[in-house]
């Protein structure tokens, strides 16, 4: 069986023009997500995970420019679509859940209405039916007493509840692709698990592809089929979750794994990754943006990054992999 990619990002580069110069935030990023598959996008803060998601959704800030690349989705390139066509797709075919659910909802609109807005916009319901459909969605994300909650404003709900509302908005029109940008940061551990299970379950039911952005490798291993590791705007390694945990090949992935508390590891054995992300405003960025922090640096590393396939769907961008 040949897997059909739901989304194939190729060669994506993004720059931000700021007061202090041009920031090359993404550099030739490429990865795929298949139908029904859940892929984790991991990396430390500032590595460009959210920017990747925003670029695919077409919701970058005005300062951000896509300078190269394609994002193939359902036979067409999302990056080449007009704003109007994209607006048709967003919310219906591809959806996104944001970090910090409290600020991500309109504070002065009833949550039921916010769900209804999306349904009506994409033909999921007619105006008169929309409130009822919205309540159905609330039931689906297991909000107790949905009739009453539909009338609530975000400030009357807990963070976990708000995140469920976000999920209801994102999944209202049964999208083919869902991007969840750190959907559980700021929530307590129990709520975290409930939310992740909910996303997983709803995704499986409808064969939806999911990109799950997180800092947390543990969470990624538990819920995702594959893991894509980002560092300073580069994809350094991508592999099935199991393979990455058993046999990480990029020095950065290895460090990241070592920094993740596992079942066996004690807090004492946690390693922190030395150095920080390079300044992406520099004109003379090295070919490998990890080279400044790398212990395996050799002369070969000055050449353009390689893309080596080192196993079943396991790629690494490194001259001296582990």
């Amino acid at each position, binding site marked *: 069986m040949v897997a059909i990619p739901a989304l194939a990002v190729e060669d994506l580069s993004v720059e931000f023009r700021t007061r202090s110069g041009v920031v090359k935030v993404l550099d030739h990023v490429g990865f795929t997500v298949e139908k029904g598959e859940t892929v984790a996008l991991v990396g430390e803060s500032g590595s460009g995970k959210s920017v990747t998601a925003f670029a695919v959704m077409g919701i970058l*800030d005005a300062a951000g420019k896509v300078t190269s690349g394609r994002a193939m989705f359902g036979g067409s390139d999302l990056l080449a679509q007009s704003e109007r066509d994209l607006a048709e797709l*967003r919310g219906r075919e591809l959806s996104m859940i944001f970090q910090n659910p409290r600020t991500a909802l309109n504070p002065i609109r009833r949550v039921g209405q916010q769900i209804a807005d999306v349904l009506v916009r994409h033909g999921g319901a007619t105006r008169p039916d929309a409130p009822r459909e919205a309540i159905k969605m609330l039931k689906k994300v297991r909000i107790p007493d949905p009739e009453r909650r539909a009338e609530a404003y975000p400030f009357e709900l807990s963070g976990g509840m708000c995140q469920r509302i976000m999920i209801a908005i994102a999944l209202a029109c049964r999208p083919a692709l869902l991007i969840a940008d750190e959907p559980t940061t700021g929530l307590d551990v129990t709520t975290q698990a409930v939310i992740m299970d909910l996303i997983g379950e709803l995704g499986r039911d409808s064969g939806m592809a999911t990109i799950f952005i997180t800092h947390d490798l543990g969470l990624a291993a538990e819920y995702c089929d594959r893991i894509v590791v980002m560092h300073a705007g580069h994809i350094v390694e991508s592999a099935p979750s199991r393979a990455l945990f058993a046999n990480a090949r990029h020095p950065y992935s290895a460090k990241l794994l070592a920094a993740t508390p596992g079942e066996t590891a004690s807090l004492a054995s946690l390693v922190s990754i030395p150095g920080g992300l390079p300044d992406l405003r520099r004109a003379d960025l090295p070919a490998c943006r990890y080279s400044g922090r790398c212990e395996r640096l050799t002369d070969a590393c000055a050449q353009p990054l390689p893309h080596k396939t080192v196993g079943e769907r396991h790629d690494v961008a490194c001259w001296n992999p582990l």
Partner: protein
Amino acid sequence: MLKLLLSRLATAIPSIAGVIVVTFMLTRLLPGDPAAYFAGLAASPQAIAEVRTKLGLDKSLPEQFVGYIVDLAHGNLGNSLSTGQPVVAEIVNRLPASAELTLVALFLAVGIAIPLGVLAAVKQGTWIDHLCRIVTTAGVSLPVFFTGLLMAYVFYYLLQIAPAPTGRLDAFLSAPTDITGFYLIDSILTGNLETFRGALSQLALPAISMAIFSLAPLARMTRGSMLSVLNSDFVRTARASGLAPRTVVFTYAFRNAVLPVITTLGMVFSFLLGANVLVETVFAWPGIGLYAVNALLTSDYAPVQGFVLAMAVLYIALNLLIDLLYGLVDPRVRLDS
């Protein structure tokens, strides 16, 4: 909603008390002889003494204050020296003229400032944004009496498309039957189109001068709050769910951005009520501002004091209205109280 109304009314009480104390102090505690003020410039010593007993100025201050409160409670603000009329009656008679002018100016200002601010924010960096910036910086720098004069010169003297800047209605037209006191409304209610046109053309220049003056803070606030709302997380959510641009800008962004603009309305009213005095002077508009200025020039003090008190009470009432309006738009305030 009723609870909100009551809690806001409660916060207005200290303001009203403060205002009453200040207006009282303005006549009694300050240097000079209030009786001489009230008696007028040319009064003889006997006349002054007479006024002193009549106004109770020979009593102790607390007694005078109590007397002042009792008078207020009876709606008595004293009599005008020059006309002999009760000040309350004069103010009530002239209030519609001032209110009509101020309200039309406010609607004009809001009607221009808000779309301008919204457009400037949505199309940041384009010519409309620059226009907005010029309007907001220049607008607050314009002395309202000078813009009024300038417009009178250009539109009345040079172009001759505006009527003479003298009052609410041309001398050849008769005032409409008094229903609301607003000429524009009354003339329509009585079906008198000619009067309506006349009243509107008289109103245009003073209202525009006042609107230009009060437009700046509104446009500046609209632009600023719209910009920050457009960059907020929930607008990004709205965009990410593919809502139509119109829905994103109006239903999502604008409704939120309008909240700080409503708060700014308080300051705008303070501007407008002050500008009102100057504009009425320029255009000989028979409102309470002109009444107070004329009284000032003849040292007729009771009308001035009544005017200050009336304006302050009006201003407090308007602020109350603004609070309620805010509560209508923002559920967080409504449900908190």
